[in-house]
């Protein structure tokens, strides 16, 4: 039998070529930059671990780490939950379901600029729909959040906004849900399982591969969140929405310190890699494939 290794490599060849051609050089270069002073317009100058040492001492760096962790901790699981809920909701045979699915998917395709302007208005504490809704359900004026005008509520505001992108994940969950054989549900129902139990013991395990995927992707993307804050708050008010990658971007392109930014990038890499490994390893017990 011909070596499976050779076949495996051939199938992965475009991927491997891409990694070698377009990723290896920039990655190695960026590691080199992290050990240098690199003002972009001048060649990099070696400074050893100075950037990393400075990182460790930089309050703002730690602040951005905390902000980003907060975001990931809250936005990713709730995004997944909303996406799954939507998928279950959309799994019905209802008239016009195609229209509904499209409506849920819309925020994912609306350009960020239009979305941001809208959300700044929606989150406006005086007039925005969000607070109007909260008022309607009885929240007193004193407790109405200031959202992005208030340093305590700006991050929650951005997390809330991110939930609207759950439509993308919902699509994938939907595809996975459709793949769950009907017989399994019938068998469970015959056994006397309640809807909740059916959900927990049949649905979740059957779509666990996709859940793992969206979870890991959410993690990787969430740690690198940048565009929303850049367009809407520029990190404010008072650095409350200073995401890690926003701090990185500023260091690189506004302060001309690409070396320092590269050091930040590699620290982030280590964080993301560790988080991913933890999630992937711990999921091995729970995720069911059929191979």
């Amino acid at each position, binding site marked *: 039998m011909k070596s499976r290794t050779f076949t495996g490599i*051939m199938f992965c060849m*475009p991927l491997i070529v891409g990694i070698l051609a377009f990723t290896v050089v920039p990655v190695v270069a960026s590691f080199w930059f992290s050990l240098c002073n690199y003002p972009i317009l001048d060649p990099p100058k070696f400074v050893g671990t100075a950037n990393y040492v400075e990182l460790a001492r930089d309050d703002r760096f730690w602040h951005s780490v905390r902000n980003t962790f907060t975001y990931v901790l809250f936005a990713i699981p709730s995004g997944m939950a909303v996406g799954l809920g939507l998928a279950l909701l959309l799994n019905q045979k209802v008239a016009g379901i195609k229209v509904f699915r499209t409506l*849920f998917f819309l925020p994912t395709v609306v350009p960020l600029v239009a979305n941001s302007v809208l959300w700044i208005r929606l989150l406006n504490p005086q007039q925005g729909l969000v607070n109007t809704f909260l008022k309607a359900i009885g929240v007193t004026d004193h407790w109405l959040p200031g959202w992005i005008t208030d340093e305590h509520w700006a991050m929650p505001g951005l997390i809330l906004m991110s939930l609207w992108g759950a439509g993308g994940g919902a699509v994938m969950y939907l595809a996975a849900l459709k793949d769950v054989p009907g017989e399994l549900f019938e068998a469970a129902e015959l056994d006397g399982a309640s809807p909740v139990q059916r959900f927990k013991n049949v649905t979740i395990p059957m779509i666990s591969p996709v859940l793992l995927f969206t979870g890991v992707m959410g993690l990787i993307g969430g740690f690198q969140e940048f565009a929303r804050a850049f367009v809407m708050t520029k990190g404010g008010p008072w650095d409350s929405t200073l995401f890690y990658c926003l701090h990185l971007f500023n260091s690189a392109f506004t302060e001309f310190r690409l070396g320092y930014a590269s050091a930040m990038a590699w620290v982030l890499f280590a964080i993301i890699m560790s988080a991913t490994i933890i999630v992937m390893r711990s999921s091995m017990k729970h995720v069911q494939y059929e191979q």
Partner: protein
Amino acid sequence: MRNRTPRLIGFFILVLFATMFALPFLWQVSTSLKTEDQVGKSEFDLIPKASTIVFNGDVVQVKPVERKGDRQVVEIIAGSAKGQKITVLPSEIHLTPHLEWSNYSEGFKAFPFFRMLRNTLVICFLVVLGTTVSCSLAAYGLACIPWKGREVVFWAMLATMMLPAQVTMIPLFQTFKWLGWINTILPLVVPAFCGNAFFVFMLRQFYRTIPASLTEAARIDGATDLRIWATIVLPLSKAALAVVAVFSFINAWNDFIGPLLYLMDDEKYTLAIGLARLQGQYSSDWGRMMAMSVVMTLPLVVLFFLAQRTFVDGIKLGGVKG
């Protein structure tokens, strides 16, 4: 006996949430149909309105022009009396629902829409083609073929997503410059033919749910991996492939930074840049920008609407067991 209530509640929740989720798009459309002076009003109003007065018994659309004491001069901007200026009291000006289509016609003139559309479509087509083919090949290699080193490739691929793009931008740009690809679409398109970590991972997850019995049976019959990939795996994963195709199309369509950095000539620019350009340094044509934004979003909406049957109705893999 079937209880109707859960279904009704489910439907109600569906409608409620759908409205909430559709809001960004609805607001976009609404703003795109507003007149200039209405666009910036602070009241949150989804219904586009325009200023009107009653003139000779008709309701005509006007534009406020000037102030005269405590009266206002307005100019009639539509209808047979167009161009006429009238002095009225502020209370005589009403807001009536009105759809301002000129934002669309002006928007199309504001930038070379069709040229940019063509540029964008070329890139999108190539990206979708390259992505679906290369990613499903790689995913098959990572999921369906047991070979030494596949975990290494998998993790190397994952790792490429973990380093923020801002720091690899410059060396990557220099790589492309060395290849002579700057100011062409090659930097945007060729990497698509080399797989995309996100989609490879996704397809790998789907492929791993394909029963081994299927592929084993084919191998026993003497089929090569390529044939198994083409004749068994691809058709079974139509749903997931459709997701890959649609999502990669959307990404390429909306991609702004890639074309901006690698293309140097205005003639090569894509729609995403054209849209961003409508936000000027000193002025922004918000009505037009929203109109063009809607125009840019519509194809994606239509694409999704049409494609959803493929990726949502899925194929029951489980049924082929045993």
